[in-house]
C-alpha cells in the first residue's frame, strides 16, 4: 500500500500534477483515495471512487446535473474540490437505497415516468430529498423553487413536480 502510494506520487510528480491523500465520507462510508488536488468532487466521485450515478453536465455551474448533498445541502460537485469536501458528509444517488429498497422519491420517479433520458434525475432526486428532509409538506411552488437550479431538457418538468408531490402526499407504494 505504502509503496504503491509512493509510486503514484512519483508518477504524479513526473506529470507535474500534485496528488494528495483524501479522506472522504461518502454515503456513510469513509473512503481513502490518492488523487490530484485539482480534481473536483465530481471527478473524484466518478473517476476515483467509481460512483458514476453522479452525472456530469455543463461543468461550470449552469445545469445542476452534478448535484450531490454535502452536509445535507444540495451543492454542485463540479464546483467544489475533492480537497474541500474532506470533513463533510457527502451523499450521492447511490446512497439513497435503504435495506435494498429504493428511496420513495426514486420509486415515485420510476412509477410515474418522470424520467425520460434520465440524465438530470440523480441531481433532481437529491435536491428534492434535501427539500423534503427540511420541509416534508412543501407546496408545488416551494418544490418548483427548490428545483429551480436543475435543468431538464426532456420532461418539461410537469411529471417531475408530480412525482415529488406524490411522495409529499404519501402516495408511493
Amino acid at each position: 500500500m505504502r509503496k504503491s502510494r509512493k509510486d503514484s506520487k512519483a508518477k504524479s510528480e513526473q506529470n507535474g500534477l500534485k496528488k494528495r491523500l483524501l479522506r472522504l465520507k461518502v454515503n456513510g462510508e469513509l473512503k481513502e483515495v490518492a488523487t490530484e488536488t485539482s480534481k473536483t468532487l465530481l471527478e473524484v466521485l466518478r473517476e476515483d471512487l467509481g460512483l458514476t450515478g453522479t452525472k456530469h453536465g455543463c461543468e461550470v455551474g449552469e445545469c445542476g446535473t452534478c448535484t450531490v448533498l454535502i452536509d445535507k445541502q444540495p451543492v454542485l460537485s463540479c464546483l467544489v474540490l475533492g480537497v474541500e469536501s474532506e470533513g463533510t458528509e457527502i451523499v450521492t444517488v447511490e446512497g439513497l437505497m435503504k435495506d435494498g429498497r429504493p428511496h420513495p422519491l426514486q420509486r415515485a420517479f420510476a412509477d410515474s415516468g418522470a424520467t425520460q433520458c434520465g440524465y438530470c434525475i440523480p441531481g433532481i432526486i437529491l435536491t428534492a430529498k434535501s427539500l423534503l428532509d427540511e420541509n416534508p409538506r412543501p407546496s408545488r411552488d416551494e418544490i418548483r423553487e427548490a428545483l429551480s437550479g436543475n435543468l431538464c431538457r426532456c420532461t418539461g418538468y410537469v411529471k417531475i413536480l408530480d412525482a415529488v408531490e406524490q411522495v409529499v402526499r404519501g402516495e408511493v407504494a
Partner: protein
Amino acid sequence: MLRLPDFNYIKPKSLKEAARLLADLGPEAMAVAGGTDVYPKMKRGQFTPRHLVSLRGLAEMKGIRAQAKEGMWIGAGETLTRVSQNSAVQRRFPALAHAAGSVSTPQLRNAGTIGGNVFVDTRCNYYDQTFFWREAAGFCMKKDGDICLVAPKSRSCLALFSSDTAPVLLSLSARALLVGPDGPRAVPFDEIYRDDGMHFVTKRPEELLKAILIPRASFGLGNVYLKLRRRGSFDFPILGVAAALSADREGTCLSAKLVLTAVASAPKVVDEASRLLVGKKISRELIEAAAEAAARVSHPVDNADLDYWYRKRMTGVYVKRALAGLAGIELEAERAGKKPNQV
C-alpha cells in the same frame, strides 16, 4: 471535458496570513472562497492562477449580527443562502435578502459567498466563453487579447458589473471591512468600484473582504431590489435596480438613494434621482422624473443577454416600479390592470 489546470492549494489559518500570502505570491495567486466564480473561470482559462489561497473555513469571516450601535455585521464568508434566509436581514433589509436569494440557483447559493458576489468578475458575451471559443473568435483585452470585441475603438474594457448584492449595499451606504497584510480598514462601498471592466475594484489585490457593515442609520430605510433577466433562475442580472428611501409622516422624502447594476462596469449611483426626490412629497410625476434621470445615465452595450436598447428602456420601468413600491403609490398601468409582462 473541462478540467481544472494544476495549481497549489494553500489553506492559511487567518485572513491576515491569507493577505500576506497574496502579497508575497503576487499576481500568480488568487483567493478562493465558495469557488463558484473562480472554478468555472479557471476551467475556461479566464483565470489562470498558479496558487489558490483558500478562505474556506475561516471563522473570522462568518456570522451575521445586528449590533445596537454599529449596525449590521455580515461576514463575507457567509453563503448567499444564509444571507437570504437570515431573519434579521429579511426584516431590516428585504432588498438584500432578495438580491442574495436571486443569484443563480439554490445549489450555487449553498456554496457561493456574499463576499464573492460583491467582487464577482465582470461579464461579457465575448469573455465568458471557453478558451477554445475565445481562441477561435479572437481574444479580447480582458484576457489574452488587446482589443474590445464589443466596441473595437474602446480604450477600456466594457464588461458588465454583474453583482446583485453590491447595488443594494451601496443603496444602504454600507462599508467594506478589508484586511490587508498590515491590518484592517473600512471603506464605503461607494469608493470600492471603478467603471472599468478589467480593473473594476479599487482595493489592493492582496486586500480581502472580511465583512460588510451596514450602518445603524440605514435600519429604518425602506429598501427594494428588482432584477431583470431572461429566466427566473440561473441568470445573472442584465439590469438591477436597488432603491433605499425614507420619508416623514406627511410623505416628504428625507433620503433617497438609487443604484443600478449591469448597466456599466461598476454599480451606477443615480445622483440626480436623490436631488429630485429629497425634500419633496413623493408623487407619480416625481417618480416619473427620477425614472427618466436613471434611464439617461443607463448605458447598456451589446455584450449581454437581450437587446441593449430594451435594457435601457427597462431601466426607467424598473426604477418606476421600485420607487412606487417603496412610496406606496400605484402606477397608471398597474392601476388600469395592465401590468406589463414580467420578464
